């Protein structure tokens, strides 16, 4: 048994060489800083450095679970779930539709939907403001011209889940559909040709060939997204609502809470605690979902 393994290793030496640069990079970039996570449990003092500083137990985590703070966790989770559902559906839909297109217009469509991804969230927040500002926003101007009334968009929290989900999709779909598109491109055309000969319509082809083949990729992308479920796009939740207090209850996430709470404090310990908290939850969730997936469809599992 051992000799077999040794033989494999010897055979795969070139493969190990291929993997090596990546591993070295990951070592320096991701693994070496990892012990720094202990900062979450310490009270950092420059004289001791990271490892010499005194322990603080779980004190740095207290603020994340304050009485008032349950809504940030609720928001973070719900928004991420909504993002996963909306973005995946739209991305898959667009990917399928685009890959069936053959005309030159396709290139135009592809480029157009990718453009929003290139804008920084700050610029996006300006653009959103251009539409939603109370006095001069284009949306209000439109409403008034249609005989309706101006709405104070930045003062009413109830609209914002929709606004944020829309903005997030607007920005992200063009990018995430690329993954699905290249996956679809890799499918064996023979399946489609055979189905066409059998008289299957486009809709049927999609339902019975494309979607099942795509399942693995969708599962994998979803699991990775689940791993980030306690994280949020800071720009989206802080810049786009323009830090308007009236919207806090609907748009605050863990990341904005940490930022607002610490403001100028630059408290390394507390922000490390937040990062740790977010990572641990994501890790557990990914482990859990991976186990589930491994039972049903081992090839789609992450590990």
């Amino acid at each position, binding site marked *: 048994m051992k000799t077999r393994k040794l033989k494999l290793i010897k055979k795969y030496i070139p493969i190990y060489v291929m993997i090596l640069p990546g591993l070295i990079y990951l070592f320096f970039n991701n693994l070496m800083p990892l012990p720094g996570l202990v900062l979450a449990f310490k009270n950092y003092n420059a004289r001791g450095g990271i490892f010499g500083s005194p322990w603080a137990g779980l004190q740095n985590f207290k603020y994340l679970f304050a009485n008032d703070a349950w809504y940030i966790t609720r928001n973070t989770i719900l928004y991420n779930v909504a993002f996963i559902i909306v973005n995946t559906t739209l991305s898959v839909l667009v990917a399928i539709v685009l890959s069936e297109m053959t005309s030159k217009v396709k290139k135009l469509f592809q480029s157009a939907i990718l453009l929003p991804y290139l804008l920084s969230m700050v610029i996006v927040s300006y653009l959103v403001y251009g539409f939603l500002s109370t006095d001069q926003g284009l949306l209000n101007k439109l409403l008034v011209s249609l005989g309706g009334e101006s709405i104070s968009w930045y003062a009413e929290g109830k609209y914002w889940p929709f606004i944020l989900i829309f903005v997030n999709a607007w920005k992200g779909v063009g990018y995430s559909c690329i993954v699905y598109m*290249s996956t679809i491109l890799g499918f064996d055309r023979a399946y489609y040709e055979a189905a066409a000969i059998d008289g299957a319509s486009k809709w049927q082809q999609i339902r019975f060939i494309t979607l099942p083949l795509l399942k693995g990729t969708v599962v994998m992308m979803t699991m990775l997204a689940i791993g980030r479920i306690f994280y949020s796009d800071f720009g989206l939740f802080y810049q786009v609502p323009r830090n308007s207090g009236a919207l806090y209850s609907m748009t605050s996430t863990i990341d904005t809470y940490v930022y607002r709470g610490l403001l100028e404090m630059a408290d390394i310990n507390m922000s490390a605690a937040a990062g740790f908290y977010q990572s641990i939850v994501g890790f557990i969730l990914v482990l859990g979902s991976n186990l589930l997936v491994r039972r049903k469809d081992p090839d789609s599992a992450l590990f």
Partner: protein
Amino acid sequence: MLESNSNKVFKIFSYILMSVLSITAIMPMLLLLTSSFTDNTTLVMNGYSFFPEKWSMENYRYILNNSTLIFNAYGVSIVLTATGTIIGTAMTVLMGYGLSKKDLPGRKIISFILILTLLFNGGLVPTYLVYTNVLSVKNTFWGLLLPGLLMNGFNVILVKSYFVSSVPEEILEAAEIDGAGEFKKFYTIALPMAVPIIATIALFIGMGYWNDWNNGYVYISTKTDLYSIQNLLNRIQQNLQFIISNASTSGVGQAANDIPSEGVRMAISILGILPVLIVYPWMQRFFIKGITLGGVKG
């Protein structure tokens, strides 16, 4: 061959969907474009509009006046993106291919480590300490290139699954029987079949570099000629934010006059988008190539 009705419906649906999405995507960008050509006082008075009252080239003139700074930043962005994309894509594809070998000893462990890096982050300070003290990249080009963006577990997983699902083992085994070693198998067979995924990864990594302002923000403090375009834009924004939140601290308000106005920021953003607008359509041909190759295989 006659097109069935349902296929026609599908086609119409496709075009309508994509048109709607494209217009939704582009419309705000047009707003961005028009505001970059708007006179700044008009911007403050009237807000954004598709048909501004007063057109002006003053924002672009400002850019030309500060051309050294801005075009230098442009250069930095381009070189950085090109270098990072080439090196990063190579590293990622190599690693992804390596991990696609199902019987590779240690595969599970390496995959686990990979996922671990995706989920856990040491944090800004520890990462900063590694890069500054151990690797000494602060205020150098490497400080822009190395941290975070060169390779990440997500891309590797994508490549790995692509190889697993789209490059059948039988072909590789056939080549092995013919006497090809591991490198040859990779180079002559797997690589050509992987063009779509390589293009995808290259696109992701490239966009990651192009859009990044964080590395420049953290690792470049004194060498202002290493600012990338997005970093520049972000710095302007951060400075403005700082001024606003400290507005009443004596004397801070004056500095607000030195910050480029909103219109200029819009113009810089447009500049930031242009190269991608040019490169991306050109790249799309690689996505199409895959079909022909894929169709050839038996």
